[in-house]
């Protein structure tokens, strides 16, 4: 579909002529996000600057039945912001003000387009911590994080984005502006719409302002590395650590292929002969961190670790965490198409799931590397193939289908933190069942009677 000239003129009247683009070259960069393969060209890209403009655009879109896809930085990995049915991509990056940091109330108020790391830095400047820590934090926006309920490296101890959203300002597809939640930790007036909007992937409303909870900045953080002969050994160590009553801030793993790729990029002197690497870290008062890391080290050794080392300083600790965040792009150097998933299982089944993934990869003859968040059972099986090899791409997708089935069989899920978007919609019913799928559609219809907001995704 293309938009008629009258509609374009009306959009320009709302946000200004400079902030509406419809030419082929202008909309092309918004045809995709960080998800490989998925691509669909929008008819227009619109950059609003305030909530009222978002409301006016949505009212117009509902009236004219034009799809609208809200977008932050476009760093999601589930094709949540690919405009599958064309229409308008609504980019919120101009709304990038940190409105308030309140140390007294331990909260921050930001516009949706503020980059996550900008919020974290603004909080840190006042001695506060914004805990959610997604891998793409320097790129992603807070609005995008809330819309996808982004996870990250600190999930085990601190939870994920949803645990920090106190309130939202959201625009409904019909143009009403609602304020859910607010500045309160305790507030049970009505259905918890804040939670419902969190992770709704831009299908129920457009988030324009967020109030998020902050924590006092921990006095110190430290990180250590344990090498194992196999991922199964590492999985046993994770069980032992949690069994010992320790909930560390970070508990990440890389398999042998990932260790090789990360080492090639980051040159950290990682051991290349190990079958698995466990990266563990904690924060808090210095003596507590020292004691916890010491105990984690002992548990790793008892579980058969080949070697355990602690970072000698903060720089080394940061370098290790940065390297872990770069695991995906570093792996991408092995081929030209990097397919990544994030199947998640209950923590005690981690080792069993890793074995299943290996078996599935062998059966479908695809190279698969696995890294992820060991502490919360969140795995990232990653397949790197040649983007011109159609057969290999097909085999990879067959393999991922089996990985999802295996995860569900183990009481797990098809996606732990990346989201459903267009990429995993075909697998969603297997996870939720027909009744929940129907309920999702009814919820979607209640918010969005015309079905204009991010169609072809959740609730469609």
């Amino acid at each position, binding site marked *: 579909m293309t938009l008629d000239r009258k509609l374009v003129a009306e959009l320009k009247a709302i946000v200004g002529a400079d*902030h509406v683009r419809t030419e082929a*070259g202008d909309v092309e*960069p918004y045809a*995709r996000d960080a998800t490989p393969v998925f691509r669909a060209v929008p008819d227009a890209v619109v950059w609003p600057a305030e909530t009222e403009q978002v409301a006016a655009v949505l009212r117009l879109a509902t009236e004219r039945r034009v799809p609208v896809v809200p977008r932050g930085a476009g760093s999601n990995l589930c094709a949540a912001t690919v405009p599958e049915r064309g229409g308008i991509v609504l980019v919120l990056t101009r709304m990038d003000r940190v409105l308030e940091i309140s140390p007294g109330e331990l909260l921050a108020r930001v516009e949706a387009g503020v980059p996550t790391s900008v919020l974290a830095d603004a909080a840190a400047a006042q001695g506060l911590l914004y805990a959610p820590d997604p891998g793409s934090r320097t790129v992603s926006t807070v609005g995008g994080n809330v819309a996808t309920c982004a996870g990250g490296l600190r999930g085990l101890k601190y939870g994920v984005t949803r645990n920090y959203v106190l309130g939202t300002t959201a625009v409904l597809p019909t143009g009403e502006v609602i304020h859910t939640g607010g500045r309160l930790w305790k507030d049970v007036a009505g259905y918890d719409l804040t939670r419902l909007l969190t992770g709704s992937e831009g299908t129920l409303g457009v988030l324009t302002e967020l109030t998020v909870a902050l924590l006092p900045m921990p006095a110190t953080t430290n990180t250590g590395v344990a090498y194992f002969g196999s991922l199964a050994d590492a999985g046993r160590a994770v069980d032992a650590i949690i069994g010992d009553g320790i909930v560390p801030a970070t508990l990440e793993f890389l398999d042998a292929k990932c260790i090789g790729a990360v080492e090639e990029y980051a040159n950290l002197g990682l051991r290349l002969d190990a079958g698995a690497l466990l990266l563990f870290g904690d924060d808090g008062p210095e003596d507590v961190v020292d004691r916890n890391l010491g105990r984690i080290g002992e548990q790793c050794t008892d579980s058969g670790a080949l070697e355990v080392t602690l970072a000698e300083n903060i720089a080394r600790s940061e370098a290790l965490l940065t390297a872990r965040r770069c695991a995906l792009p570093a792996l991408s150097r092995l081929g030209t198409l990097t397919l990544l998933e994030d199947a998640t299982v209950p923590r005690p089944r981690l080792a069993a799931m890793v074995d299943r993934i290996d078996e599935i990869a062998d059966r479908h003859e695809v190279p698969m590397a696995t890294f992820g968040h060991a502490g919360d059972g969140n795995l990232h099986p990653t397949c790197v193939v040649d*983007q011109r090899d159609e057969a290999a791409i097909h085999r990879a997708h067959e393999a991922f289908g089996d990985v999802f089935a295996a995860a569900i069989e183990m009481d797990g899920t098809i996606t732990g933190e990346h989201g459903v978007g*267009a990429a995993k919609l075909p697998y969603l019913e297997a996870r939720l069942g027909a009744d929940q799928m129907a309920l999702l559609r009814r919820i979607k219809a209640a918010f969005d009677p015309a079905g204009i907001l991010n169609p072809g995704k959740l609730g469609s």
Partner: protein
Amino acid sequence: MTGPQQQHMATPPGRGIFDPALLDRCISCGFCLPACPTYAVSKNEASSPRGRITLMRALETGRLDEDDPRLREESSFCLGCRACEPVCPAGVQYGDLLEEWRDHQWRGRRRPPPAQALMMIAERTALLRMMGLVRRHARTAAPAQTSLMLGCFERGLFPGVSRAVRTLLPDIAVPPHQGCCGALHAHNGESEKGRELARTLGETLPGTIVTTAGGCAAHLAGVLGRDRVQELSEHLAKTGATPVGEVKIEGRRARVAIQDSCHLRNGLRVFAEPRALISAVADFVPVQGDDSCCGSAGTYSLLRPRDSKRILAPKLDAYEAAGVDYVVTVNPGCQRQLHGNLRRRGSAVHAVHLADLLAAAAGGRPLPRGRRWRVPQVRVNLRRRLRRRGASGGTAGWSA
């Protein structure tokens, strides 16, 4: 319906404009967005490295052609500063992609005339030599292990830089008959000519080539090999020469900031060396943004003067707010950009080349000082004409 069916589509073959191995590297993760100066001012994906690579792919597959206004606009709006490269975990060589893009996009009549004119001058070695004679740059034909590259325009614009180097490195050879390194060509759609000029210069200059231009260093190293070429600060660090003396103002050590050369920092990863040298002779003041592009960007300040100033303005504010006496540059383009625009502001901050700073510390020619008269901005018609030409693709692509 989308889903698995769509997912199985493989990438079709392209038109051969780009090396597929370079283009395939990008996984669109977006880690480059925060590093890009043009994305920072525009907040438009099309003006980001990831977005430009998406446009290159559309050009390669034929979805868009070279007459597309956005393609024309972005191929010139990009500063070519390569700040996206060090932050890219996937190892995309954006600078090489940009060269391939401009080779195609700016071929023949499509090349911006001012760039064409500069390239024609730079190719005339005899002309460069004459310019150097008039401006009295350093010269000595005595054979040596290392040679100083004079730069095509630096020898005419800032002849004092090569003289300062001679006081720092008395044994260096400075053959007067040397041409342009070709970086100018490589960045303006003539990459093959750029490589040819670099190879010729490599034959003219014996031994290790020392240069006072960060941009030239990166280009030469790319063609002749990393070990043949050393930027001045790198050379001084490698040879272990300790800077002598200090730069003082009214009895105190001068406060000195730096403006990195983009290709020196992002291409050759040299940025600690000049900072160490400054710290040895003055009080080094880190300034927010001293590592990002000043908007000179080779021919950029001539081709897109308005955008160039828009990139530069907040940086000049930062240097003035930091209360420094000098900003050190390590590339003639940056020197010209900072020197001219600080003077126009009537600023108390002076831009000086690293060689000038070190030579002054050792008792050589003193550095300029004090607040200057504000130079009224002269409106040149040519500039408006250029802008109109450049803007046919529309600078209005910005949403901010």
